[in-house]
């Protein structure tokens, strides 16, 4: 009887100490891992900081404007191309046939080409940017009227002409001469 109790307690003590040591080693291990992770976080944060600086550098309006002038036929958008609120969009004439107000998105990655006005094309705007600035057909500015504070992209001197569901920002800048 006495022996049994003693044995039970001894076993319990042994189990407790095994659990204690196990836990203690685990804590040490986790401490090391935590320190490593913290170092990694700082490294990543520094990398993010560098990338943010580079992102800003690459978004330099002067640079983007030069690129846009050299590689795209886009120019600064004028008042005729802006629709600041949904109310300004007129309703489609009831007899008009054709796709919805904004037609299908362009193929992502495709270089924007001058949209050819086609019969039966949307009466208001096609999602393909209308590059001919003299065209009377307005482009829809899909941005909200208020630039949101959290926008990560500096859209330098540019207008988002169309934002297709694919998420391509087609921007326009530079001086159209």
């Amino acid at each position: 009887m006495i022996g049994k109790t003693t044995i039970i307690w001894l076993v319990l003590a042994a189990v407790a100490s095994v659990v204690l040591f196990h836990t203690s080693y685990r804590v040490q291990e986790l401490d090391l891992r935590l320190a490593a992770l913290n170092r990694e976080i700082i490294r990543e944060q520094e990398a993010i900081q560098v990338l943010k600086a580079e992102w800003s550098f690459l978004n330099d309006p002067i640079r983007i404007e030069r690129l846009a002038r050299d590689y795209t036929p886009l120019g600064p958008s004028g008042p005729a191309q802006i629709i600041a609120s949904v109310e300004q969009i007129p309703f489609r004439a009831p007899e008009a046939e054709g796709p919805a107000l904004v037609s299908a998105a362009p193929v992502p990655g495709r270089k924007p080409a001058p949209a050819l006005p086609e019969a039966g094309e949307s009466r208001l705007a096609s999602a393909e940017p209308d590059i001919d600035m003299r065209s009377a057909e307005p482009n829809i500015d899909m941005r909200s009227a208020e630039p949101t504070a959290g926008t990560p992209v500096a859209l330098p001197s540019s207008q988002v002409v169309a934002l297709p569901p694919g998420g391509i920002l087609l921007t326009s800048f530079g001086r159209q001469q």
Partner: protein
Amino acid sequence: MTALRLHAQPSPIDAPAPGRRNPRKAAAALEQGRSRLVVTAAMFAFAFVAVGVGLVDATVLRQGAEPDIAQAQPAGLLQTGRADIVDRNGAVLATSLASASLYADPLLVIDPVEAADKLTAALPDLDYDALVRQLASDKRFVWIKRKLTPREQYAVNRLGIPGVAFQREERRIYPLGPLASHTVGFTGVDNDGLMGIEQSFDQALRGTPEPLALSIDARVQHLVRRELQAAIDEFSGIGGAGMVMDLETGELLAQVSLPDFDPNAPMNLDENTRFNRTSLGVYEMGSTFKIFNSALAFESGKIGLSSSFDATHPIRVGRHTIGDFRGKNRWLTVPEIFIYSSNIGSVRMALEVGTEAQRALMAKLGLLSRPSIEIPEVGMPMVPNPWREINTMTISFGHGLSVSPLQLVAAAGAIINGGVMRQPTLLRRDPGEPVLGERVVSPQTSAMMRRMLRLVVTEGSATAAAAPGYVVGGKTGTAEKITGRGYNRKSRISSFLGAFPIHDPKYLVLVMIDEPKGTARTHGFATGGWVAAPAGGRIIAQLGPMLGVEPVDENRPDIRQAVDLFAAPAPATGGGTTGGSTLASY
């Protein structure tokens, strides 16, 4: 353990020696011993249960509430020595990047000459002789080069020179270069702010990792800078200033002073480049001051839209003559005085209202005291003291009182936005934050001024500033600069101040060119209407779409109702001869 032993040890009460004691007594003692044992055991059991409960509580239950001994690195923002400066949309204007600085412990350098040979080969911009001297000295620490690029660091690391090591330092980077150089400023080699926001927010930037958001919009800043530079180039100006202010909040969306510089390498800046023309420079503004003079006239109650003044002859005051540029030489109504920019008429209006009222309005508009803005480069206006009648006369058309473009923008904003003076700011305001303001003129005066400003764009000197779709109202100004003891007809300040859409003003634009020279295209003119107004118009035409301002048909009846004066004077005639005045403002 004590309890275990108590249980395990054979108690003397358990085995009494038979016959030696009274059995009844022994039974009582046994009973007593048992009950004592029970009490003791109960106490120990209680103690153990308490310890057990405490253990469970400490290890299992309190986990969440207990302070973590292990500290996790806060996710998100890197704790740098200096916080970022961003524009209103989050584009980084200034950031801190970790970089390596090269130093040496000369006592550990074995061969200074060889080390200097290798180092100058890797870093060609080092001075060889100075480096040898440094490495041969008996100090324990010398900087060789601060803030190396990663490429340089790699090159030096490859050399493997003993006694040479790197120290981690932060380097301030301005990714957008000169875009907002005068506003953001720059830092010195020890990352202390030496100009602009970097200087005025030096302590705040060191304290928090949270980026400081400016009211500047990089896109707008670029647009203004580009158009201003184009105007300066075209008219061979020596500099210029451009600003865009949000009339509802007083936020400056752009603050451009040209020429500017690259804050990444702010070495050897000359005074002209470093000079912030928007807030530090004070200038006699010329005709844009007629905005304040007309507002003063309306506020006095003595003068209305249909009042007219004699502008037939130049006014002689002492040895000065005040005349008109392209003078009409007849009686002019108040709107005519404004759109033809008649100095004579303005003087007569100011004299009718009086010196005291003029001075009081100028003070309320903040034109007589140092303006408050979040950068240290702020100029003190040059206010005449004493304020004589001659000063009243010249100030009516913008001479004799020098103010900074910042003051001009803030004061004109107050006249245009409905009559409430709002402090211009370079920090982004939260959209919900109420904007405090002090009423300086009545809403009626403000409404009349907006109509008059519109008239200048449709029929007056600022027709070049018209931007179809955005109903622009504005005023041009040309002032001669004082060189030496007198006004110099050849060195001018030409400016345009415009607001749009004028029926519901949202943004105010100022374009100012320093010392423009006339070209063949402008028939030799270098006035505000020829030089600054076209740039202002180009800025507004691009600014509207950029900021999502709704374009309207300018001939819509309700718009015409809101911006037309009831009696529009005859359209201005082109051409004309230069007025023969010594104090001209047009």
